[in-house]
């Protein structure tokens, strides 16, 4: 009995356990998502995160220990981003034909993402550090964290806001686009990718290849646009809000 207990204590802190936990939680959340007719509100990322967080809280495991196992999954984000070139290549003719429409829509979306978030949080009394952490939230995490730091925000808070934004976009995006009558797959993908980076793109890829390619493109372009634009306009934004 003692050896059973010892083995459990050893295994529950091992990378193998937390890697398995991550995969199992995702399988569980995906199965629920499929069973409920792929309802976007039951986003598998959200479901899996809730399960993992619950297990970590119950077993009093700190995030660092968890990440030792989960890093093997996390690492694949980079290669997956590179692999987005494949659907993008397949859609390249279509991307080129609508290059101007993409550039204008993306720029408008990028500015909307920044200004609307900052405005709402400011109206509700968010501090300047909170506003600066929030401003780059639609951009993929590593870039958003770098921008937040430049603006005087908290990069680690930004990382969380980025993930939540991604999940919200994947959950609510399809419904909003239906309500607005946006039926063009290119427009649907571009909108999801601009607002909710990789998490939105992962969802778009499951639904339609055109949407996935345009979403991946928007994710990359919005990272670039926000990184260039936001530090330039931030002084003006802060001055306007008088904070």
């Amino acid at each position, binding site marked *: 009995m003692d050896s059973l207990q010892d083995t459990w204590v050893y295994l529950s802190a091992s990378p193998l356990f937390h890697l398995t936990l991550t995969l199992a939680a995702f399988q569980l959340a995906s199965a629920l998502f499929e069973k409920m007719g792929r309802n976007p509100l039951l986003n598998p990322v959200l479901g899996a995160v809730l399960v993992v967080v619950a297990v970590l809280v119950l077993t009093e495991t700190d995030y660092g220990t968890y990440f030792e196992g989960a890093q093997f999954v996390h690492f694949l984000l980079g290669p997956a981003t590179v692999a987005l070139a494949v659907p993008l290549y397949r859609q390249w*003719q279509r991307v080129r034909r609508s290059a101007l429409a993409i550039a204008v829509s993306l720029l408008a979306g990028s500015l909307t993402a920044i200004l609307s978030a900052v405005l709402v949080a400011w109206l509700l009394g968010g501090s300047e550090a909170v506003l600066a952490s929030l401003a780059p939230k639609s951009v993929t995490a590593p870039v958003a964290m770098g921008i937040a730091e430049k603006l005087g925000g908290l990069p680690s808070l930004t990382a969380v806001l980025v993930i939540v934004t991604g999940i919200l976009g994947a959950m609510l995006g399809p419904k909003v686009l239906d309500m607005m009558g946006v039926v063009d797959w290119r427009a649907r993908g571009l909108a999801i990718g601009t607002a909710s980076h990789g998490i939105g793109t992962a969802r778009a890829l499951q639904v339609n290849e055109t949407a996935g390619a345009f979403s991946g493109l928007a994710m990359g372009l919005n990272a670039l646009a926000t990184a260039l634009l936001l530090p330039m306009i931030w002084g003006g934004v802060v001055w306007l809000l008088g904070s």
Partner: protein
Amino acid sequence: MLGYLTLILVCQLAGEFITGALMLPVPGPVLGMVFLLVFLMLRGHVPERLDQTADGLLRSMSLLFVPAGTGVILHFQLLGEALLPLGLALVVSTLVTIAVTGLLMQWLGTGEGAEKGDG
């Protein structure tokens, strides 16, 4: 399979190296995506094995965000303190951004290349 996984890693490594050395404001993997796109343009088609490798990575892309998402446990307290401004800002901004971008792209991009569907 392994050959193309290596190619993908080489693209990412080159992307990380160049963005780091030149301090470019894009993430290394995004520049790596551009490199792989250039490779495909030079090849003129997607090799079948590369297609399988990329598909394997992309099909389970959602899973890859779970470890980063779990990082939320580091910020329970901070999130609790600013829950209303942060939560409402994220929801409103995400909805408005998706609507503005989608409507504008559909309106500007009418005609050539449009492909309709629902889902």
